[in-house]
């Protein structure tokens, strides 16, 4: 069936959009504009979240709370976590690259629901601004990004309510995005393109979106109940009124464990796109990659209580969640070996994009190993709520997802702008980030094993030196942003022209001009049946539409 709009609406809305840089401030329906809106908006929030992280590390350079008062420290900590997760990583790995790339990969001219897509993006800036301004008005929330009751009920209510509203808006945005991705991937595929011919990022986004649609509403419902506890003084999660805090933890982690996969599965997909291009080899083990993603989706929904081993969970529950969590290492390990095998024997061009991807592989395997360790109850009980968990978490979301975001920016910047980024600055950025990141977070494993609790502004003086090393690493990470920012700004205006396909890549987004025309292709969309068919031709001619078809005929 086709939509037949009433005559008043039949005019193409895209022709009414502003052009030039102004369209990035408009309610644009173009998936490429929305994707870049997500990316730029997310990056601005990343800078704010980074400043907050800097404040935390300055405070922790000395064992007493001198730089920030305890209340302010709690607020800064809460804002840092919430901004980095809900306003930077989730919107960027899903919204930014998903919106930009998925329509290309499925051979569509836009997402399935362009208007819903724009709504989903425009929920984000108000939610973020609301969250940040709450700090200046009545004080921001103080109970961490987990908002565990009874802490979240007893701390000042105004900031906590703003936090809840903001997360509800962001959750709504995420659900709308997820519905859009599922519909686009399953329903808008170009005729002749089979699911098993899609680039891996489509599979990653399909799996992620399933997790978003199934788990985010549970968080929304939970936060609504929590807001009742704060505003109407009900007792859902308030033990003094007969409530049960453990139920909050279960419901919260039913979303927030899958949220880790919502942050990391798209990153897996992006790495799977970047590695084959720069190693000039097909992606190793496509089918196992697909099954691994779906395995992670299924397992990811049934491991949440491993965050609650010290919450008085009964033994059978600990046993089940330990085993289920350990199983996740299998599909994740398969993906890891597939990436290594993709690189193995390839003609690797060692540019910034692949450096960040390799950095991701190294960091992620370290974070994965500590993850399996944390899944074991005896070990987890020992290090629960210590800096070991902080280190593990940041190896996954910074060493994992953020490294991939940088890798993707280096890889797709020519597509976005038609300009090349400066390679020397890029490599400098990578070296600073990689050293800074490991210097910042590796020592925190030691701190945690020796019993330094997380989320506290003060600590035992014996930890001072190691904390200062960690803070020095954070300083390097902060400095590493400068060459990156300069590179982006300088190259946007004066960068070398990249041509349409500087990497000689075969996936569909490169088979058009850079930056692409408004409906992605002049003429018919190319049918890319082998997105990873590298190394099969003597001379690569990716700009010709027929290479993939030739192989199949």
């Amino acid at each position, binding site marked *: *069936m*086709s*939509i*037949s709009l*009433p005559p008043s609406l039949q005019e*193409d809305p895209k022709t009414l959009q502003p052009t030039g840089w102004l369209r990035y401030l408009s309610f644009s329906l173009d998936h490429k504009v929305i994707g870049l809106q997500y990316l730029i908006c997310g990056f601005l929030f990343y800078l704010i979240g980074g400043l907050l992280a800097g404040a935390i590390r300055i405070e922790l350079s000395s064992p007493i709370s001198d730089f920030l008062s305890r209340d302010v420290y709690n607020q800064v900590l809460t804002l840092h976590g919430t901004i980095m997760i809900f306003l930077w990583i989730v919107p960027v790995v899903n919204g930014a690259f998903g919106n930009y790339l998925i329509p290309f990969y499925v051979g569509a001219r836009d997402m*399935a*629901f362009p208007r*819903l897509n724009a709504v989903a993006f425009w929920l984000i800036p108000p939610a973020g601004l609301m969250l940040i301004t709450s700090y200046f008005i009545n004080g921001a929330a103080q109970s961490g990004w987990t908002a565990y009751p009874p802490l979240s009920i007893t701390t000042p209510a105004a900031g906590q309510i703003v936090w809840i509203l903001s997360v509800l808006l962001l959750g709504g945005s995420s*659900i709308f995005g*997820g*519905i*859009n991705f*599922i*519909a686009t991937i*399953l*329903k*808008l595929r170009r005729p002749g393109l089979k699911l098993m011919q899609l680039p891996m990022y489509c599979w990653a986004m399909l799996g992620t979106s399933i997790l978003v*649609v*199934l*788990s*985010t*509403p*549970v968080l*929304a*419902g*939970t936060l*609504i*109940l929590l807001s*009742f506890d704060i505003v*109407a*003084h*009900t*007792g*859902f999660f308030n033990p003094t*009124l*007969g*409530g*049960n805090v*453990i*139920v909050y933890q*279960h*419901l919260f982690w*039913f979303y927030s464990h899958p949220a880790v996969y919502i942050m990391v599965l798209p990153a897996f997909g992006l790495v799977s796109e970047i590695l084959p291009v720069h190693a000039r080899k097909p992606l190793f083990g496509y089918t196992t990659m697909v099954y691994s993603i779906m395995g992670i989706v299924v397992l990811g929904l049934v491991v949440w209580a491993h965050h609650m081993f010290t919450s008085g969970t009964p033994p059978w529950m600990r046993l089940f969640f330990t085993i289920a969590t350990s199983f996740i290492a299998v599909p994740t390990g398969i993906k890891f070996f597939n990436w290594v095998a993709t690189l193995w024997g390839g003609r690797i061009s060692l540019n910034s994009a692949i450096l960040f991807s390799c950095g991701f592989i190294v960091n992620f395997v370290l974070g994965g190993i500590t993850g399996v360790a944390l899944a074991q109850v005896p070990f987890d009980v020992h290090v629960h709520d210590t800096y070991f968990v902080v280190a593990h978490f940041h190896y996954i979301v910074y060493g994992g997802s953020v490294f991939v975001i940088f890798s993707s920016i280096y890889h797709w910047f020519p597509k976005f702008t038609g300009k090349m980024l400066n390679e020397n600055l890029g490599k400098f950025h990578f070296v600073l980030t990689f050293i800074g990141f490991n210097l910042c977070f590796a020592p925190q494993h030691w701190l945690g094993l020796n019993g330094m609790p997380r989320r506290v502004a003060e600590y035992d003086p014996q930890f001072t030196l190691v904390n200062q090393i960690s803070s020095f690493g954070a300083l390097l990470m902060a400095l590493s942003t400068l060459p990156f920012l300069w590179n982006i700004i300088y190259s946007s205006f004066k960068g070398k022209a990249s041509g349409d396909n500087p990497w000689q890549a075969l996936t569909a987004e490169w088979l058009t001009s850079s930056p692409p025309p408004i409906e992605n292709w002049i003429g018919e969309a190319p049918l890319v049946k082998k997105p990873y068919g590298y190394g099969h031709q003597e001379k690569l001619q990716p700009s010709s539409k027929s290479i993939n078809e030739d192989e199949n005929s």
Partner: protein
Amino acid sequence: MTTTASLNQESETSSTSEQEHADHRLFGLISFLVADGMTFAGFFAAYLTFKAVNPLMPDAIYELELPLPTLNTVLLLISSATFHRAGKALDERNTRKCQTWLLLTAGLGIAFLASQMVEYFSLPFGLTDNLYASTFYALTGFHGLHVTLGAIMILIVWWQTRSPDGRITNLNKFPFEAAEIYWHFVDGIWVVLFIILYLL
């Protein structure tokens, strides 16, 4: 579903030009209802856990009266049937009959809400009395919000069938179908809620 089948037949005959693309709005709506259903699932899970692990004081235990909620269940089930009849009438291009069935459906929805209000005021506990009371009001209230939205949607659809420029006809019935699927969903949730909250 008969309504979708007729639409599919139509799509085979209609030509697809470059401007038009297939309509996936129903798919999107159903995905959204899956998400919405998960919100209810979270509430149900919370309620059942509270019930299992947080025993109430003996004086707080109160046996719910069944007649009124049973009447509510019947009202909603009938309203699903009347909505279905409205769809049939629309397929037969009998707009007047369709409008009557739609108004009846909306009326049943409003009757449900009124009856729910009567029940609320006859209950011996308030929102903040105890955990059970809070969960009861949160669940029924959240569902009542859905019924309210559904009734408004039905009235909008009814209004649109009246408009002369043919916003809703048997050939362009997405708003109608969306409201219908949503309404059946809300009814289905009520049946689950009725079993869990009143019968268990």
